[in-house]
């Protein structure tokens, strides 16, 4: 039943660019590669220890993987799965973001209260910035001028001037900030707080708070509704927010900041990414060890794909 419903929605979608979703499996030391056409795992490649953050270079010729317990960012050839080399990353790299210049990786060093900036070409550390305790969420503005680190125990978004590699502002958010994204052409910053159970929306111009999004899943205690990763649709009018152990994705109207829908997915949903035309969303579900595929238009879960143990990060690359 589910399969045929899915086939229909797939058929209706505009012919998508063939592509892959790469998923890091935190407790298997592997990445699973899912075909966005067949929705099956087509490759599994070994990585360093405890892979978490994952992102591609601009031309998709390289995939960067935070191997947290190997204290390295690994650079892999996505066509072969071969690890080309490691980048110096500082200790315990958890998440990172690639600057629009396609060279500088901003890396959160979770154990060290540091953000490390690495040049992927020279393979050298160009700056280390002291931030709050347990840095995690990383974002960079579309114009590349601002990088953000969120610190989980300090409960702040730290604003980094990418020219000077220095902090120019620190803004408090609710407990355990996990993920940050710039939206609306870089005029807004969204930060999710896992234990606080909220997303705070900032005006980037003056770092003031514009609004706050709360979540309420029927039948789930508010304490278990824990926003973590989130992504926006192509028109940026809608955000999909992973709510951790509540096992739901919230669909948020990015203009009114109201929650419009909740979608049941796998257990402990953490991060996500879209396919090429953003018609499908792939969520990593740590505890159930699978990836849920959501049809974006109908806001329904259409398939679960078994991957490795504790899937954490997800990143898309086109293959045509």
């Amino acid at each position, binding site marked *: 039943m589910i399969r045929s419903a899915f086939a229909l929605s797939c058929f209706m979608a505009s012919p998508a660019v063939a592509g892959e979703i790469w998923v890091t499996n935190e407790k298997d030391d592997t990445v699973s590669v899912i075909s966005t056409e067949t929705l099956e795992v087509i490759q599994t490649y070994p990585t360093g220890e405890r892979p978490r953050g994952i992102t591609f270079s601009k031309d998709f010729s390289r995939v960067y993987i935070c191997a947290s317990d190997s204290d390295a960012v690994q650079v892999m050839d996505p066509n072969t799965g071969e690890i080309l080399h490691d980048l110096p990353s500082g200790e315990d790299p958890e998440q990172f973001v690639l600057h629009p210049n396609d060279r500088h990786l901003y890396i959160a060093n979770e*154990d060290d209260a540091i953000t490390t900036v690495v040049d992927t070409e020279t393979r050298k550390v160009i700056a280390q910035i002291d931030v709050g*305790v347990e840095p995690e969420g990383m974002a960079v503005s579309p114009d590349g001028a601002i990088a953000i680190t969120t610190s989980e125990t300090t409960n702040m978004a730290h604003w980094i001037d990418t020219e000077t590699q220095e902090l120019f502002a620190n803004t408090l958010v609710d407990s355990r900030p996990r993920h940050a994204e710039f939206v609306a052409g870089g005029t807004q910053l969204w930060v999710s707080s896992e*234990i606080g159970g909220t997303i705070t929306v900032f005006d980037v111009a003056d770092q003031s708070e514009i609004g706050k999004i709360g979540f309420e899943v029927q039948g789930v205690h508010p304490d278990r509704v824990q926003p973590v990763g989130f992504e926006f649709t192509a028109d940026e009018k809608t955000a999909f927010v992973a709510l951790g152990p509540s096992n739901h994705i919230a669909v948020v109207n990015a203009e009114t900041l109201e929650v419009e829908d909740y979608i049941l997915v796998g257990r402990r949903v953490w991060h996500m990414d879209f396919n090429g035309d953003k018609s499908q969303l792939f969520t990593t579900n740590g505890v159930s060890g699978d990836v849920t595929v959501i049809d974006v238009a109908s806001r329904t879960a259409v398939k679960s794909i078994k991957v490795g143990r504790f899937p954490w990060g997800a990143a898309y690359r086109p293959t045509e």
Partner: protein
Amino acid sequence: MGKDLAYSVIAGLMIAAAAQAEVALHVGYLSVYEDLPPTLSNLDPEPDDIGIAGAMTGLEDNSTTGRFLGHSYTLTTAILEEGDDHLAAAAALLGETPFVIIDAPAGDLLAIADLPQAADALLFNAAADDVPLRDDACRVNILHTMPSVAMRTDALAQVFLKRRWDDLVMIAGTHPQDTAYADAMRRSLTKFGLELAAEKTWAFDADMRRAAAQEVPLFTQDFGDYDVMVIADELQDFGRYVLYNTWEPRPVAGSEGLTAVTWSPVIEQWGAAQLQSRFEDQHARDMTGQDYAAWAAMRSLGEAVTRTDAADVDTLRAYILSDAFELAGFKGRPLTYRDWNGQLRQPIALAHPRALVAQAPLEGFLHQTNELDTLGLDRPESNCEAFE
């Protein structure tokens, strides 16, 4: 104060920043000597810095956050030795700061809280798990970051009920701590509709390291069949020799075997791995429940300073007890304080030495306001009036 009294001042990370800090919080840590009876095994020596180590990790966490806000934190510790006058030491410390984290037996804690110097203080009980401190002996100037023994026995009772292990027997030691644990366990079992089929008192004086294999099977034979054996042995004296020596092959829980604990090195979920590794890097050992309670006290103060931009007792106490307060305590839920007796609400780990088995409150144990209040004295059960 005795001559052995160790007295030291530990500044936060950011001594340089302190000069320009707009808000400075000075915290005291007082450890009162407790004379405990010897135990059969020497396997688990207690670390010298138990508790303080947690406070120091909390201090560092606070200081790292504070430097972005112009807040500075310092810690003064007073570690008392046998024979030291704890009331004089407490009065001296309270002369320096009204914020004191205390590791002391219940009686000493109450005497300190009743000092005139403590009248307007904010004390944190980071060690005593006695139920009366959260009940009719509560004090308005004490908050409790250490869970009560009732919170721990309620956690175990939830496991027994959920697993349908309802045929229970208990062996209790004779130390006051064992008796208090056994009382709390009986109360918890009644609360969750369970009961003990039989009880025995441990009153051996043989050295069980040699005699356990002979004595324990015989001692447990007349229990007949049962589901779980509960051990009340809070000083970790004899319980370890009961495991695998019972007449019936049944699991052991309570003070030994499956234990309900404040914290354990086996907790790695909910971001706990970070706190564990931070602690281990700083102190070269595992974090204990007492370290966790002291860390939580220090972090509660830090969180309140961060959010209120103040460092006076009235503002911080009001904020900590308000709905706005929440502490991210690496237990998967926000931690808050019960405004009827000052107890920090927190999940309780059910663990054996190698893994976390479950975390209470277990799924299905519901509560009209907060599931965490299924653990320990709930508002209607507590006779604490000081907070009204």
